[in-house]
């Protein structure tokens, strides 16, 4: 694992850039634990102060320090993305591996469900969930809902690899030596699909965080928990741009762009690493 990262960082500019940008994000998240203010504290500081030595990124109209608010919001947003990615990875691994290995009717049923989830429009459905849950729309609920919408594409990808693994001699050998299906999938097949799982994790985080930001900006999530989207929501609610408090909007937008660029670069370079043809291409240059 460590050698792979070292090799990637040496050979692949995109990976290195992504890693550095991600380090900035992680640094901000770690800083959030040293925040002098509580996550939901408001009207503690003089409002609408422009960035200066005391308030590095200024303060909001709600009397919050933009910098510390940013770190806490970023932490929640990142944890949200990781939560969704983790849960949906489990679903996609189980569905993909089982469908690929079992084949036949099991495969057909699982893939029929898979394809249905793939085309169902997610955004209207998420709004529907909010419409119904309203105040019960907690972060845990949103994570579970997003995770159950975001596994299908990657399950197909994993299935296609599992199909290939099934016809390899080592699988036959495992079957003849009496391993159970669960054991074959976990001990024999899982290591082969893990690199793909890592690459799709980044994509899944991009998708889920993007969705969360959009829902939050529109006010369709739990508005008490500070996240990146919530920061923009409150800035909009106070018409920050019109009243010239640009730092309130600019700070989260800048951090969001950094976060997404980091995830995107990491996922792109990992995809390339997983594809032997493009890896050879790069080495040849």
């Amino acid at each position: 694992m460590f050698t792979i990262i070292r090799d990637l960082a040496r050979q692949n500019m995109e990976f290195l850039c992504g890693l550095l940008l991600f380090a900035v994000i992680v640094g901000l998240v770690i800083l959030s634990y040293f925040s002098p203010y509580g996550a939901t504290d408001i009207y503690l500081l003089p409002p609408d102060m422009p960035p200066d030595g005391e308030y590095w990124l200024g303060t909001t109209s709600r009397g919050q320090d933009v910098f510390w608010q940013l770190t806490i919001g970023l932490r929640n947003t990142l944890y949200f993305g990781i939560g969704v990615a983790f849960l949906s990875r489990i679903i996609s691994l189980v569905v993909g591996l089982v469908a690929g290995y079992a084949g036949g009717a099991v495969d057909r049923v699982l893939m029929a469900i898979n394809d249905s989830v793939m085309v169902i429009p997610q955004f209207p459905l998420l709004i529907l969930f909010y419409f119904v849950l309203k105040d019960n729309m907690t972060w845990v609920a949103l994570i579970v809902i997003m995770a159950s919408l975001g596994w299908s594409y990657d399950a197909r990808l994993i299935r296609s690899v599992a199909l290939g693994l099934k016809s390899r001699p080592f699988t036959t050998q495992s079957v003849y030596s009496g391993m159970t299906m669960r054991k074959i999938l976990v001990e024999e097949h899982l290591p082969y699909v893990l690199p793909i799982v890592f690459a799709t994790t980044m994509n899944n985080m991009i998708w889920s965080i993007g969705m969360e930001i959009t829902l939050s900006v529109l006010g369709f999530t739990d508005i008490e928990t500070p996240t990146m989207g919530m920061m923009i929501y409150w800035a909009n609610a106070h018409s920050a741009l019109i009243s010239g408090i640009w730092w309130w909007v600019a700070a989260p937008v800048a951090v969001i762009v950094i976060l997404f660029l980091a995830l995107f670069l990491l996922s792109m370079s990992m995809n390339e690493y997983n594809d032997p043809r493009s890896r050879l291409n790069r080495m040849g240059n």
Partner: protein
Amino acid sequence: MTPYLIFVLKRFGQFLLVVFLGVTITFFVTHLTPIDPVEESIGAITQMGQSDPNAIELMRQSLRELYGMQGSIWEQYLHFWLRLATGDLGPSLSAFPTPVSTIILRSLPWTIGLMTVSTLITFVLGNAIGALAGYYRKDMVLKAVSLVFIAMLPIPYYILAFVLLIVFGFIWPVLPINGGYEMNANLDLSFALVLDILKHSILPALSLILVGAGSWLIGMRALVSNIITDDYVVFAELGGVPKGKILRSYIARNAMVPQFTGLAMSLGAIFNGTVITEIVFGYPGIGNLLIEAVHAGDYSLVLGLSALSIVGVAAAVFIIDVLSPLIDPRIKVE
């Protein structure tokens, strides 16, 4: 039966399954919750002063009937399907007694128009640049253009739309930033109106195109750079076939095929994009309608819109899936 017919039937089964699952989810999500639309409407009415208990009970009865909420949840479920099949989605709560279907039909052309045109432009633009960038790998202009599109890919949609809004609405105010037409426009069909509608659609469409083109570009570029090492392309190059002809007839045609299949996959995502676009730019389509319905607590309208979007996307995917073997002989239909 011909293999193609079997393939179409299988895909049709898939289409029915998607609709069944989607509508079932929509139904049960809205029915297994503490919110009772009838009690909510009663609450709204009693607040306005009506307080005779007999009248309220009568109202409760008729509202239950209107919303199709009598009997057990299974009866309601069956009833919901029957109404959906006949296109009757009940009356809207916020614009009572206008039927939900009438309200949706008023907004639908806007969404379909914006969606079709911007999807087609996105598809053509992304694939054209992708094919060129994959073939002329050393060209700096193409590299720069691809980089710009790819860099926009990971940015959340809302943020990008917001930036467009600031740039063209405030910094360089040349385009209308809100609505589908001028507020006091005369809605008779005229050249001026068409021009006005087009002008209002530029920013929403542009934002959809900027977001969408990058992924087509990446896919097409990868496909083309795989194909250029194939023997028949190398052979054509050695034989002195003009470069433009190689790109058009030898490479792009083969690379386009999987892209058409991808078009079906992207339709679901396009719908997500349109909802957000319409909210940001105040475009009078069904995305905006959905948000208004959520804010107004219009239960039947939200239910109708969700069911419609699922059926619509599933149907679009079905049509493209069925057409793709006609475009691509390599897709096996058996």
